[in-house]
């Protein structure tokens, strides 16, 4: 952690994520208004003392909606990534540990899936499953799975011929023990780095699906949905669109910077 905070990129990412974490945990408590409360006489107002970021088309306080929306937006990013890591990591671990024909079969299938861009893949899945936050999260997790499986497998391949693995096998440990207790703990670091960066992509994909009407649905305060709902009014109050847009950008930037720093710190070639 100390190394991370000494790293300029890591420090910037940590600061941004600390801000986002505060919003996620305490947002609903510190929001000045109920995020759904109408103020019909104050519609589409610019920033003021009463409404720091102005109001939307219903007269709802934009700041309160941003603070409340942090939870759904960040939880979406974390949830989709963790699900993708769990599924992709397990597949990569099995493919790498077993090897042979099973490995080849799994990896060719995943190569095929990797050829489809993430956004297209998620759109395809959401179209089949139907919209909504749950399906959108599942779609992003599935889209992430092939890439994460490939990283997990390559890490397993580099670990499985190491001395401590061979020693465990020589001791007569079961394959399950070898995978779970010897190989897996040594593959986690690169996956964490990759996952941290992918959270930012997941946030942006979630916001994109929300914007397209395929993710969170009204009256959710999810940031992508906020942009979609306010888009028609952006000429009358640009902050309606700009505020959730900046929030998405900062959250994505925070995870990206942190991921970059973690990669630098865990990559032996990058150490000076």
């Amino acid at each position: 952690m100390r190394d991370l905070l000494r790293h300029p990129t890591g420090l910037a990412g940590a600061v941004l994520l600390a801000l986002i974490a505060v919003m996620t945990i305490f947002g609903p408590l510190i929001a000045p208004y109920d995020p759904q409360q109408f103020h019909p006489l104050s519609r589409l107002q610019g920033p003021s003392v009463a409404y720091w970021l102005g109001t939307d088309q219903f007269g709802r306080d934009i700041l309160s909606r941003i603070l409340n929306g942090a939870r759904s937006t960040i939880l979406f990013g974390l949830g989709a990534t963790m699900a993708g890591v769990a599924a992709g990591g397990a597949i990569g671990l099995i493919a790498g540990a077993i090897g042979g024909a099973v490995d080849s079969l799994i990896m060719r299938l995943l190569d095929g899936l990797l050829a489809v861009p993430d956004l297209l893949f998620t759109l395809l899945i959401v179209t089949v499953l139907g919209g909504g936050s749950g399906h959108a999260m599942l779609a992003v997790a599935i889209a992430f799975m092939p890439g994460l499986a490939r990283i997990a497998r390559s890490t397993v391949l580099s670990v499985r011929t190491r001395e401590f693995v061979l020693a465990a096998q020589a001791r007569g440990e079961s394959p399950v023990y070898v995978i779970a207790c010897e190989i897996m703990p040594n593959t986690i670091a690169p996956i964490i780095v990759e996952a941290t960066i992918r959270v930012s992509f997941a946030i942006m994909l979630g916001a994109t699906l929300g914007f397209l009407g395929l993710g969170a649905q009204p009256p959710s305060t999810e940031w992508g949905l906020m942009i979609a709902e306010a888009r028609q009014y952006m000429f009358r109050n640009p902050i309606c669109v700009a505020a959730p847009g900046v929030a998405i950008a900062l959250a994505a930037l925070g995870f990206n910077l942190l991921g970059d720093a973690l990669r630098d710190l865990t990559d032996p070639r990058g150490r000076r």
Partner: protein
Amino acid sequence: MTQLPITRRSALAGLAATTALPDLSFAQGAPKSVGTPKSGGTLKISHPTRVASLNVLQISGPAEYLAVDMLYSGLTRMGPDMRAQPDLALEWSADADAKSFVFKLRPNVSFHDGKPFTAEDVVATIKTIQDPKSASPARTVLSMIGDVAAVDPLTVKFTLTSSYADLPISLAHANARIVSAETLKGPLTALDTKANGTGPFKQESFDSARLLKLVKNPAYHQPGKPYLDAVEMHLFPDLAAETQNYLSGAVDAMLEVQQADFKRISTAPGSVGVRTPSGRFVNVVMRQDQKPFDDVRVRRAMAMAVDRPTLVDIILEGYGRPAGDNVISPGYRYLLETTAPKYDPAAAKKLLAEAGYPNGLKIPLICSNRPAIRSQVGIAIKEMAKPAGFDIDVQTMPHDTYLANVWMKGQFYIGYWGMQSTEDQAFTLLFTTDAAFADTAWNSKEFDALVAKGRATIDDAERRKIYAEAQALMVRDVPSVIPFFQDVLTANRSYVKNWVGHPLARYFFVENVWLDKA
């Protein structure tokens, strides 16, 4: 056969038809032409919803209505003044009790494939609509037709099962345009992609995901029209992109303008916003064969928990009028002026307590995500009804899911409907027991009887009285909350002349449109 008295509507329409033949455009309720029309040019119209089909007997989308209005003609057509105007019929007459109608057809009219239009085509079209297999929305509207027969090639006789003075209006239904008898002998699915009508424009190309291109029908039955050489309908699923394309001059007219953009579009240089009062409405469906809405006090409490003027302001941006749960808007002939329930959360809360909900009522309200106005109304009503004790959980879902799981089945959801041509059509669309979409399950025998009686009554004053009673019942029982009537908003570049709005948004008179370009 006895002619109806001159005061009766059908006779008036017939008279108008026969006296105004020299200049039919005025007889058809078209706008007064500005300047001398110029021929030529291509009109590019943008629209946000797909033209999924060209099947005139089945279509129901906003852009599809425009397409078939240009491709097909009906016996009659509804003018912007909400009166039935002659189209393929030159004139009509009815017997004294309005049970038998004779329509004289326009001679020398041909379909786009060159085949002549005759009474047999009318008979074939009506009989196809009456066949349940056609799945035509016009079927219910024309259900009173017992028999239709060709008297001669240019005369058609309709025999009705009960008196119905509004038959010429019902025949103007957007899905009752005339298709050739020969086409109808083949599979109806052929109509989905290939149109062969008698309208002012002919189909040139059709890509439902992008563009419908039509070209002038030189054999159109109105001499000298259409003025345009071609019309292109461009699909813009993204509303912001559609607006920007219009403002940049890439298209000449917008079929629909969103309320949020209307002021900006109307005041943009070279742009004209067209606002037409309409009876289009959103309704809060409260299914009455289930608790809690089987109790009229709960429905009345809901009605009092909705601030209608505020809804008009925040949802419609002022482009509409508050309504009082009566489906009949000021554009209809027999409107009963009633006062909308006042927003009174305290009284609503008291009523809710009397109905057995002293601690309020927690209930999910389902909204389709298309069009956005449904969820906007849901969100607004949630907040407005909160002080009255309604704890509403707004659940927005994809339109397909809504159609499959909620529509016609759900207990509490948001509907969205266009204006109808007559009171009878409005009542039988949603509210009678045998309505095409009876989703409120009101099932009021008293209301059904009044609607049936009104349909069979010829005397105008008597009919007004009957329909007034029906509307009073609707206001009393609140089968659904109808909070406002929404205006129809369109726009055109200033060089586009005679582009008109229509309260029904189903008739467009594009044959009168011309381009005043140098």
